[in-house]
């Protein structure tokens, strides 16, 4: 494994550790509902600060269930991951293609006339 790949793996592992540690250490245990969304907690805080506040507009479309909502979130992540993977795949392919073209050129230059006549036959 190259040094580059190792560093990249360490970075990924660190991110995974940061996400898993709060769960393993039970940092949500002091809460009635551990690991709810901070956005939702802010809504609760608003109703505490101003108990008579009524949201004056509701979403045009609301996912009918938690399952549908998580499906849509996965779709969002999948779309993003797909485009990123396409980008890096394309770049890698281009780089390899360029390298092969260079090698072929070098080969043809070496074999000289033989390479040329092969190209003419094509």
């Amino acid at each position, binding site marked *: 494994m190259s040094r*580059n790949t190792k*560093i*990249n793996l360490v*970075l*990924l592992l*660190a*991110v995974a550790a*940061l*996400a898993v540690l*709060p*769960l393993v250490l039970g*940092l*949500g*245990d*002091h*809460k009635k509902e*551990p*690991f*709810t*969304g*901070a*956005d939702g*907690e*802010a*809504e609760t*805080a*608003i109703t505490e*600060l*101003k108990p008579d*506040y009524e*949201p*004056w*507009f*509701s*979403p*045009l*479309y*609301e*996912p009918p269930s938690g399952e549908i*909502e998580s499906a*849509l*979130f*996965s779709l*969002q*992540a999948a*779309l*993003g*991951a*797909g*485009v*990123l993977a396409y*980008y*890096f795949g*394309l*770049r*890698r392919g281009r*780089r390899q293609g360029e390298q092969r073209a260079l090698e072929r050129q070098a080969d043809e230059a070496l074999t000289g006339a033989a390479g040329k006549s092969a190209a003419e036959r094509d």
Partner: protein
Amino acid sequence: MHIAEGFLPPAHAVAWGVASAPFVVHGVRSLTREVREHPESTLLLGASGAFTFVLSALKLPSVTGSCSHPTGTGLGAILFRPPIMAVLGTITLLFQALLLAHGGLTTLGANVFSMAIAGPWAGYAVYALLRRSNAPLMVAVFSGAFVADLSTYCVTSVQLALAFPDPGSGFLGALGKFGSIFAVTQIPLAVSEGLLTVLVMRLLVQSSKGELTRLGVLLAKKQPRTETEAVTR
């Protein structure tokens, strides 16, 4: 950092919308110019938007026992400057408001201001400062992404505290309350975002050297970018 639909009083919703609109309009102009002048950058633009899509969909557990998500805006701000990131961030927030009931149309202005404007600008400022003082690229990238992420949530806390001051302790009391919900939760997530942004930047350095040099992220010469260059870009 998504303020839920209808959860900002109308006056605040309108004010944040008015504050955000010029940034987004200016961003759309910069974006169309970038695409027209450098059609080859479309792919990397797409990848930057995609990074925001992935990261803002990832809800991760944090030390406070609640979950939140990174923003992914640091990368695009560093690569293409904050105005263009304003557009990419707005697209992400619109997607979430319309399809996921996450955030909302009435709070779009406020959410755009925190995630697509304030965060990218703060992150980019830190990145540019560090680069100018000759910090290593990846240190600047990590710090920029970290600050973009964390400042977004600080701005959200300010927005909510302005709209809902504590009856007893006023704006500051409410700021403490929202800050403890958002900002503290966000610190480890901002570290994660910094690490992921460094990872993607490392892959970009390997795969897209030419592009990064054109965008001024990698330096063609040894000299750091000067003030005027940064402004004219």
